[in-house]
């Protein structure tokens, strides 16, 4: 491996290190969305990202997600935009951000005189804070073992499971060998893989936890009456959810599974982790994650500095907060959509590269992007974000052995 494993990052006052220095503008209910978007718009290419929560009813999961995202190592400062009457605990969230040492401001639209004055005050704050962050954020050397990397697939087809996903798996093995943390997510997309995953757990008790999580998953999706499977998946040659799962599972590589975490749990040390994204308790708020973006947000809440995204049909999404590296599985899709893709894994099918070579290429890209090089979706301004209602119980002691 010739790639340099050190790069320059940003040091936060809580001691964590980020690879971007992003300011988040956060709407705390849909009614504040437009104002927040107007504040961001002129600054959207200057590292100011828009995220938010639409609901007016309170939800502990949404609060905890926001707390994690607003204190994510890639986040440098936070502007909260509240209508004023929603149930989101804006003071509690502001306190979490202040305690982390980051600059934070809260604008309550009803107290600031409405749309125009709030937009104006928000932009004034952004001007000052962008300059302040530029001057005051400490730069620091970071090495690969300090990285947290997530993996997800979206717009899958039958090539995903034979090119991009196993190539991401090779990259995950390299990351874990270098003592980085690698997280693969479990939605309905691992149904059918329960036993082979449990067999890879570092302890039998963790294996049991994985099996019971997968039982929960199958039960939840059965209640919803719909597997994690979109129409485009079958156009692309996938027929059943378990077939899609086998392909998705290849993203995990071959390292032992060191822990089972839930959204917002940050891996305590290097190694491979499985992220359980299916809510606990009965099916209450609808589908576990309504789309790929909701899943990426959860990986980021677990500390992911960047996310590897495998696609066959051709997804164009990126993300707020953490860059997304797009690995295209299908050579025909790559030729059509090269401007959106960072890695051409489809050439494996046409004899242009081996899985190991593409795995190493993804690993090199991880280091380059961690060092500041923008991904395709970042350059194109993609900053998708979704957060919905969910509920989780804390993980049990068997989930993080050692």
């Amino acid at each position: 491996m010739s790639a340099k494993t050190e790069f320059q990052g940003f040091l936060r006052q809580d001691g964590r290190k980020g690879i971007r220095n992003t300011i988040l503008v956060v709407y705390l209910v849909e009614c504040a969305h437009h104002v927040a978007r107007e504040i961001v718009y002129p600054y959207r290419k200057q590292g100011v990202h828009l995220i938010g929560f639409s609901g007016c009813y309170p939800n502990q999961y949404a609060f905890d997600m926001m707390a994690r995202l607003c204190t994510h190592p890639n986040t440098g400062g936070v502007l909260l935009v509240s209508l004023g009457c929603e149930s989101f605990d804006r003071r509690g969230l502001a306190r979490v951000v202040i305690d982390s040492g980051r600059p934070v401001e809260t604008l309550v639209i009803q107290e600031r005189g409405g749309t125009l004055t709030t937009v104006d005050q928000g932009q004034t704050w952004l001007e000052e804070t962008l300059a302040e962050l530029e001057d005051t954020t400490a730069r620091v050397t970071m090495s690969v073992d300090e990285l947290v990397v997530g993996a997800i697939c979206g717009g899958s087809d039958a090539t995903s499971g034979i090119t991009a996903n196993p190539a991401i798996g090779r990259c995950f093995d390299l990351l874990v060998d270098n003592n980085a943390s690698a997280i693969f997510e479990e939605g309905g997309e691992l149904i059918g893989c329960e036993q082979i995953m449990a067999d890879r757990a570092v302890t039998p008790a963790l294996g049991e936890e994985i099996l019971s999580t997968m039982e929960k998953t199958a039960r939840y999706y059965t209640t919803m009456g719909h597997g994690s499977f979109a129409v485009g998946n079958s156009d692309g040659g996938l027929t059943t959810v378990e077939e899609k799962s086998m392909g998705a599972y290849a993203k995990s590589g071959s390292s032992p599974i060191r822990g089972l975490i839930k959204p917002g749990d940050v891996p305590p040390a290097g190694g491979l982790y499985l992220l359980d994204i299916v809510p606990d308790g009965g099916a209450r708020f609808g589908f576990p994650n309504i789309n790929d973006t909701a899943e990426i947000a959860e990986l980021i809440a677990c500390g992911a500095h960047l996310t590897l995204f495998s696609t066959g049909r051709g997804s164009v999404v990126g993300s707020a907060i953490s860059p997304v590296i797009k690995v295209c599985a299908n050579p025909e899709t790559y030729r059509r959509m090269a401007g959106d893709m960072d890695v051409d894994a489809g050439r494996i099918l046409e004899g242009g590269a081996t899985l190991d070579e593409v795995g190493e290429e993804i690993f090199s890209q991880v280091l380059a992007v961690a060092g500041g090089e923008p991904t395709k979706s970042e350059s194109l301004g993609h900053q998708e974000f979704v957060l919905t209602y969910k509920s989780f119980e804390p993980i049990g002691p068997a989930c993080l052995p050692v």
Partner: protein
Amino acid sequence: MPDKQSGLLLRISDEDNVYVLLRGLNAGDSLKLGEQTVVVENSLELGHKIAARDIAAGEKIVKYGAPIGSAARDIRAGEHVHLHNIKSDYIPTYTLNSETD
């Protein structure tokens, strides 16, 4: 994984009873499966599966060396293996009403 590659057909694992197409095929193209030559009935996109041998109704469909569903009816060697002839052993696959075969 794709180590049993012959250019057109990929058998991912030795136990698999389906092949994956590495390029698209047009209706009327012929395909060699061992001794047998099979004519493709409908155009097929890259990534779709065809039966590597005759598969009886109820038999498991095996890909990646793992079951990915069961045959809903008898499937001949060389036939397209998809929504019309196999079903999930977990959750039924959703299709748009306007596109149902």
